[in-house]
């Protein structure tokens, strides 16, 4: 006997809706669980004190500093490269074999797992360039890791700038470079900042690549050649070595809040950007 389509439709919707709810529930549970266990331990002393006894006591101040400095350095390196790549792809050339190769390379780079970036950073920056386990090695490695994200979002931002803007600028006698610098880039800025935020989020949550290149020293760095420890790494060490669950939860709560805030800022900015463009 054939089941009437009306009933199969009802069954299908129930099943699909159930799957969606389950997905959302699991993801929300993870965040709620970590915040509920960790937030009570997040006090002002926790945020502003040095860690003591390998992290069993004290706070995470130098680790917060490391978490700020390392992604910042990565962005300083990746931003000009990423935006420059996007400018070339959008403003200076048509689709050629070369742009296809560049796009292919960017897509491949985006899919490489972080452990491979870590291995590469370990051989090249730490070893061959003699930078050691340092802020600089870690920053360079993370810069390569987030380069594809920045290229892609910048490209989208540049393409969203109406073509007429460029035509007007060129018709007034501006060169291509003047047009890019004075007209296209300022208009694409919010979109580019979105890419920056997404890259920042990835850097903050990265662990494997950071351990291999920036090391794990939990002290205030005094130069770019000092090792640093980020919150993700600190959390990993505390949790895996079973040093202190309480401090691990606290670090995880700060880490999750930081990542969510950064990503939220990215989406908010992208939305504002799209809405302004739509008008």
């Amino acid at each position: 006997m054939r089941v009437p389509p009306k009933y199969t439709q009802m069954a299908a919707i129930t099943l699909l809706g159930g799957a969606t709810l389950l997905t959302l529930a699991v993801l929300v549970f993870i965040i709620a669980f970590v915040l509920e266990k960790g937030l009570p331990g997040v006090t002002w002393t926790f945020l502003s004190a040095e860690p003591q006894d390998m992290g069993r006591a004290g706070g995470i101040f130098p680790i917060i500093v490391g978490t700020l400095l390392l992604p910042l350095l990565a962005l300083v390196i990746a931003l000009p490269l990423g935006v420059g790549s996007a400018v070339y792809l959008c403003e200076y050339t048509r689709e050629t074999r070369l742009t296809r190769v560049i796009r292919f390379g960017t897509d491949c780079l985006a899919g490489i797992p972080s452990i491979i970036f870590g291995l590469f950073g370990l051989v090249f920056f730490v070893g061959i360039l003699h930078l050691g386990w340092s802020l600089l090695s870690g920053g360079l490695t993370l810069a390569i890791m987030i380069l594809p994200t920045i290229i892609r979002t910048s490209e989208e931002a540049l393409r969203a700038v109406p073509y007429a803007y460029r035509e007007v600028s060129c018709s007034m006698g501006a060169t291509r470079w003047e047009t890019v610098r004075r007209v296209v880039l300022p208009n694409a800025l919010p979109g580019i900042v979105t890419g920056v935020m997404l890259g920042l989020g990835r850097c903050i949550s990265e662990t494997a690549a950071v351990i291999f290149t920036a090391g794990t020293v939990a002290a205030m760095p005094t130069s770019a050649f000092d090792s640093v420890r980020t919150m993700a790494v600190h959390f990993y060490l505390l949790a895996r070595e079973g040093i202190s669950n309480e401090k691990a939860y606290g670090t995880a709560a700060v880490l999750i809040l930081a990542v969510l805030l950064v990503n939220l800022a990215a989406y908010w900015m992208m939305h504002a950007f799209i809405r302004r463009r739509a008008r």
Partner: protein
Amino acid sequence: MRISGDKIAKYVFLAIACSAIASLLLIALFILLEGLPFILRYGPWKFLSTSDWRPHEGAFGIAPMIISSLWITAGAMLIGAPLGVAGAVFLSEFVPKSVMCIIKPTIELLAGIPSVVYGFIGVMVLAPLIRTNLGGPGLSLLAAAVILGIMVLPTIISISVDAIGAVPNAFREGALALGATRWQAVRMVVLKAARSGIIASIILAMGRAVGETMAVIMVAGNTIRTPHSALEPVRTLTANIAIEMSAATGMHRQALFATGVVLFVVIMILNSLAMAAMRRKGGR
């Protein structure tokens, strides 16, 4: 003079634009340079197919790690793919646009949760659940597969929703006009049209699962052996590299880089497959 300045700018940007492909080549070069000589010296077949990993005695067989990586990835896909695709279909076809506009960014936001946090949840919540209900040590192949299955959900949902959204509305209207129910239209028309994008999302998720390191180290148990059941602790290729790298020297270190070469090749194959699937969608 101005024209020549513009020319210079063009070449500067061209040089910058090659930075991504140059980085990719550098990475490939140095990983291969460190790992390939070892593979050739030790024998590729022996390296890939024997199951003795005793670095101090010069035995480097990574078969158990390859098998564990494959099983964990397969398990993760078994959990992540149906849930993710079902979620994508539901969100794009059966939910008002306004709701979807809230839920999709939320799910993408969750893609930003650090993998160490997923791993920690696996240790604190999932492993005890498995231990008390199913037996075994808890930290196991099953736990790793479930955690990775959850981790890849945002990837699958996000890309699949885009693929389904790219199907022209006329397709749906045509099916509905012929008397199909919404579900029939989705199943027979929309899913067929969005197929390559959905497949691409699953392949990309596979790449993420194969390459994931920290979460797996925390939940998989890390015993080197060929698994006979899903409840046994296992060690993956990525975990092996991350755990042993800090203490490794000489041959041992080269063997770990050789493991990295295997991983790199697998990921590049998966990426190429995903890109080919995406291009087919774009070509039509």
